[in-house]
């Protein structure tokens, strides 16, 4: 095969491989279609002067937007939509448009414009992953771009103040979440049993809302009332990302902290699962399910060996 493709994107936290919706979409699609991507999470380097992530580099070709990256992967025969009918392909396009129009503004607002969220979570997180002195400038620039986008697309009359625009975009976002939930229903993925492009996009947009811990969380609370969407995110995280979420620990001084943080998150997740599987755990300490052995053996953050035992 040709040289492996490299994807540069924003890193992750709170149990997610990436915080950035577009990066997450591309990573999810790569997992679904089996594309061998080497993922470089940006951490304290000078490689992102324009912050137009995610960026795919394959031999000499550089591609930067998620839709184009996905097209490129499809042309390289990594196609997650192979089994879809033409009508389902059309539905994919329509639902992605719905996500971009209705959900993205509220997502951008929650991350970049809501003052408490931005100052206490988003800005420090992004600033810690960009080299000084860009870290003083880039998060502010991203925030201004987000505000610009929202005001230009949604902020015309008769909505004259930012609070009215905010109210409208959150209403739209909640309606969009409801529509997605109705469309998903009880199936595992949007088009049956295998995940497709649409699942990648929905996951990319929903997972940050679902997992990132913000002070102001109205969208997250609304999402938590839609259990099928939460289950959808969790399923993808456990099936497709669990095995590598700890494999890319950031290089540098805070390896130990990062691993400890990840360990804490895993422990929290496991304890939730353990509450559910209470009886069977007490009866069988040597229970094969991977989650329990991970908890017992993972001591210093090196989880790769028990993980490799557990690959399906």
């Amino acid at each position, binding site marked *: 095969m040709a040289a492996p493709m490299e994807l540069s994107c924003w890193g992750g936290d709170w149990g997610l491989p990436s915080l950035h919706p577009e990066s997450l979409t591309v990573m999810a699609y790569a997992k679904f279609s089996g594309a061998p991507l080497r993922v470089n999470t940006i951490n304290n380097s000078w490689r992102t002067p324009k912050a137009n992530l995610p960026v795919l580099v394959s031999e000499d070709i550089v591609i930067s937007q998620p839709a184009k990256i996905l097209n490129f992967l499809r042309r390289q025969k990594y196609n997650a939509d192979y089994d879809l009918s*033409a009508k389902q*392909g059309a539905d994919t396009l*329509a*639902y992605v448009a*719905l996500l971009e*129009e209705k959900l993205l503004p509220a997502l951008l607002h929650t991350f970049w414009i809501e003052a408490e969220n931005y100052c206490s979570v988003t800005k420090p997180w992004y600033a810690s992953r960009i080299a000084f002195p860009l870290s003083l400038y880039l998060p502010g620039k991203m925030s201004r771009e987000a505000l610009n986008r929202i005001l*230009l697309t949604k902020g015309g009359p008769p909505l004259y103040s930012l609070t009215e625009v905010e109210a409208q975009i959150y209403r739209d976002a909640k309606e969009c979440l409801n*529509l997605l939930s109705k469309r998903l229903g009880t199936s595992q993925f949007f088009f049956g049993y295998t995940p497709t492009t649409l699942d990648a996009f929905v996951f990319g947009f929903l997972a940050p809302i679902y997992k990132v811990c913000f002070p102001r969380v109205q969208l997250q609370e609304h999402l938590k009332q839609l259990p099928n969407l939460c289950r959808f995110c969790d399923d993808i995280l456990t099936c497709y990302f669990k095995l590598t979420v700890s494999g890319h620990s950031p290089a540098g001084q805070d390896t130990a902290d990062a691993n400890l943080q990840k360990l804490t998150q895993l422990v929290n997740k496991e304890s939730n699962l353990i509450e559910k599987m209470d009886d069977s755990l007490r009866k069988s300490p040597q229970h094969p399910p991977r989650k329990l052995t991970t908890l017992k053996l993972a001591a210093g953050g090196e989880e790769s060996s028990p993980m490799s035992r557990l690959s399906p």
Partner: protein
Amino acid sequence: AAEPWPENAALYQQLKEEQILLSDNASSLAVQAFLQMCNLPIRVICRANAEYMSPSGKVPFIHVGNQVVSELGPIVQFVKAKGHSLSDGLDEVQKAEMKAYMELVNNMLLTAELYLQWCDDVTVEEITHPRYGSPYPWPLNRILSYQKQWEVRRKMKAIGWAGKTLEQVLEDVDQCCHALSQRLGTQPYFFNKQPTELDALVFGHLFTILTTQLITDELSEKVKNYSNLTAFCRRIEQQYFEGHEKDSSTIAGRSSKRSLLR
């Protein structure tokens, strides 16, 4: 309780022959088609300052009783509040699909139309600037159209369309038409037997693209590639517009800047 639909309900848009642009015409036609499908009579009134009269700055807007509502989305809600709806018969999943497809049309087709009108230099010089400012004397006509152009270009930049070339935009239009064509298939309407607001919206945009003469025919060629879409437009035109011969609302009576649907 819903009030009855008044006789003198009016729809306002810009001047049809000299001023209105592709995207506004498409939106206006979509609303007209929707109201025809609901069997609600409406007069079309053309005013040069329609954009400024509108509560949201966008055309078309309707004046019903003592209320003024603009744009298709709010108009559909308003009409529903009066007791008329085209999408009541759909189940939840179908309603979700309908909304998604309407967003697709707005996201791709409308944005492509705006791009073509305001960001493609040839079209801007030869068609848009002369038309947009035509009711006003110099220099107001140039000032207004430059102002609008700057506004639209800012928006394109914010959503990432400023970097696209015309070919890429036409590609997107093709993709959108392909999706619509696949979804329509061989059915008469998008949700089989009954038309819905999605049919009105798609009709508005596609019919306008097909019947508007631009610098090149590339845009309308993209739509003509899909025979079920052209048949769909013809069917709706025949069913909902041909019976009404009033001067202001007939589609067949257009002049210089339009060519008839063959």
